[in-house]
């Protein structure tokens, strides 16, 4: 029995040099056990658990994972190359597609980068609305993962509940942006257009619903003994490892660190409202999931604050016919739902960027996957994959 425990707890240190648990993988093998032959199992790219086309090649000893190798790039579309051939307005329509669950946040980063370079004065109202939308989008995203995580662990109901809420919120955002998934509502220097009549009231109502319903997820999963048994202590990611992999977002916060660029380096209006950053203690799957749930409520709080303080006025600035960022380089990071999304924009003063490097959260988070998987059980792999929340497009860009 204890052996089963160690299977799920001890961690190999394949990639991390000089970390705390170096060489654990070797120690697990106890002499007593029969000689076994590892089975090479290819999970994905079309596998229910790797929602998307992530592929993980694992070496199995029984059900214990000896080695795990994530293989990515199936959805690589060369965004950075495409961006170099397009002007900033067109990039807006491209950039929101890599992480298709947080389109608005994606656009926001680029918009802010260009605005800072051009030293544009973005209208107050636009900046508040950006915060509002960003938070709605965050909730959309988190709901998705709350559902899918349950689904992967075999609890099939939460995902349907999640989509119930998502539909409502999507309809709300669609009424403002016209899109259900790819909102493309940001523009350099503001927003596409102002909100439709009644949006703010609807938002206020919606936060109430979401809060009420997020309780259902808690009832379904939070206290559920089976769920706890499946996730507690599974895929625990120590902070130092997380840091050296550049892991961010709920995965980092679950490890106990309130690192969130909305707080540490507030952009737009986050500095003027109080942003609660929920954290966990163990950094295991359970904490990651709970942090995600808490973030939904936190976002609701933010939205309420925005609704109280949104001013009237224009949402656009008058721009030259062709937007051109001055020569130079800038790095802008925004707190996307899945973690920190960074945009390193190098401009040579033309209407399209000379280089636009996008640092996506999922890429770094999945890079830590071998560390998390080695020594886990096959079933744990599902719990880990599901709780290191990622979008394949966000990995591959």
């Amino acid at each position, binding site marked *: 029995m204890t052996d089963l425990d160690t299977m799920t707890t001890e961690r190999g240190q394949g990639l991390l040099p000089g970390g705390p648990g170096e060489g654990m993988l070797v120690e697990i093998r106890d002499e007593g056990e029969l000689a076994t032959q590892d089975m090479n199992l290819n999970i994905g790219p079309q596998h229910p658990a790797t929602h998307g086309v992530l592929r993980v090649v694992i070496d199995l000893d029984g059900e214990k994972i000896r080695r795990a190798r994530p293989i990515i790039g199936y959805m690589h579309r*060369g965004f950075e190359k495409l961006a170099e051939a397009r002007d900033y307005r067109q990039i807006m329509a491209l950039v929101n597609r890599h992480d298709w669950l947080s389109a608005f946040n994606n656009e926001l980063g680029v918009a802010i980068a260009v605005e800072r370079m051009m030293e544009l004065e973005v209208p107050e109202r636009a900046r508040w609305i950006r915060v509002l939308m960003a938070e709605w989008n965050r909730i959309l995203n988190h709901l998705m993962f709350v559902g899918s995580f349950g689904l992967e662990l075999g609890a099939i109901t939460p995902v349907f509940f999640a989509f119930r809420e998502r539909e409502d919120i999507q309809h709300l955002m669609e009424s403002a942006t016209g899109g259900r998934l790819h909102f493309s509502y940001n523009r350099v220097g503001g927003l596409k257009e102002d909100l439709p009549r009644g949006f703010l009231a609807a938002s206020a109502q919606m936060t109430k619903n979401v809060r009420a319903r997020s309780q259902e997820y808690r009832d379904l999963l939070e206290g559920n003994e089976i769920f706890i048994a499946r996730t507690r202590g599974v895929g625990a990611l120590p902070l130092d490892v997380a*840091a050296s992999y550049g892991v961010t977002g709920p995965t980092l916060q679950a*490890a*106990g660190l309130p690192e969130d660029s909305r707080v540490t380096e507030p952009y737009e209006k986050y500095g003027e409202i109080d942003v609660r950053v929920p954290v966990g203690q163990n950094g295991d799957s359970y904490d990651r999931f709970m942090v995600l749930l808490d973030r939904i409520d936190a976002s609701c709080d933010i939205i309420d604050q925005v609704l109280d303080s949104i001013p009237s006025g224009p949402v656009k600035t008058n721009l030259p016919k062709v937007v051109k960022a001055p020569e130079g380089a800038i790095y802008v990071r925004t707190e996307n739902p899945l973690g920190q999304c960074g945009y390193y924009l190098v401009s*040579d003063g033309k209407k399209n960027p000379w280089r636009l490097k996008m*640092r996506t959260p999922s890429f770094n988070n999945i890079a830590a996957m071998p560390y998390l998987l080695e020594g886990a059980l096959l079933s744990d792999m599902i719990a880990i994959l599901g709780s290191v929340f990622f979008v394949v497009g966000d990995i591959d860009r």
Partner: protein
Amino acid sequence: MSSTREVATRTGARAAEAFQGGSPMEPEALAAHLCERLGRAVVDVTVTYGQLTLTVEADALAEAARLCKESPALAFDFYDHNAGVDLGEEGFAVVTHLYSLRHRHHIMIRVVAPGGRQAPKVPTLTHLYAGADWHEREVYDMFGIDFEGHPGLLPRLLTVENFEGFPLRKDFLLATREAKPWPGLKEPKEIGSDEEEAADATAAEAPVAAEEKAQAAKTRAERARAKAAAMRAEKQSEKAAAQAASTEEAEDAGSAPAGEAEDAQAAAAEKTTGGETAGAGAAQVAAAAGEPEPQTPGGAADVARTDIAKDAAAGAVGGDTAAGAPGDRPGTDQPVHDPESEAKVGEGAPPVPSGAPGPEAEGRHGGAEREGRSASDAAAGGPKADAGGPTASPYADRSHASAGEGASEASETLDEVGRPEDPRPADTPDDDTRRGGDDS
């Protein structure tokens, strides 16, 4: 499980304390701190938008990163990302972005990879940061920069294993833009200009076609000059007869825009391999030239506009039609500057093959750009100089802008070739039709 929970909690709790309660350093302070330790290895320190970019010698990168990670005052424990940047001729740069969870300050360590474009090399950081692994593999995928000491850059991370070339290098062609002609290229067809001409006008990217066009343009230029001389005389008399009073205005009204038209066309020609978009550019800028005097008696400017547009566009379609006898088009004798503008197309043409990177221009990106720049400056200088009167100035800007565009586009990968600077040329057709609409 219980054991696990304790283990995890311990690590979690311990780490959480260890990673909090630091004090951020100002970029300048950071720079100073590192400079004194790295000494002459630091090539350059820039602080833009409050962000520190420290350029160091390639071989000092690992040392710099180690310092950043280990010295407690800096404690850059968080590996954010690294980005390759194409520097043109100098080769490539790699910008490594580190962050400190404890102190919450950033640093970007920039390294210009030695080895130029052929064999760029940069030391790896995988021994310091586990996260560097994938990021360096990505940079290798995209730029072919070799990270010395990296556990394994192959198989390729993001592209397919047997992918040829390095996509993010500027000389790598963007296939999607190669595949089909740009739909935005077409201009409204002239009356009488027939289909296939328009067709090959759009699909003209082959360098061969470019040279032919250049030649055609040259010859056309010669004929045009002759014609120009004849016409000028003719026009002088004609003008004198026509409007005794408003000669002056008409004159400099004509001349100022003429200047732009030329330059802008030079620029347009600069940027395109074929003459076609030069034609387009000519059409619109010349039209622009005509704009400032809507109130010109008899709308001479208007006629001039349309004719120039026709000529230039026709020149785009094919040398002969363009250089064809002026008689077959009404009122060709009116404007003096259009043959000259054609001439400019001719002169503008020769630099084209070098200026705009055709397939053969790969890898000569830097050179191409510098030419482009100078050309654009020249072009820009012109209209700025003789942009006559407040009415003319916006168009002066415009043609200037377009010239700049032209140059920029010239420095683009081939996928951009053949795209006129986006919305601008479209304006004049608008104005055209708008006016037309009002009258009819």
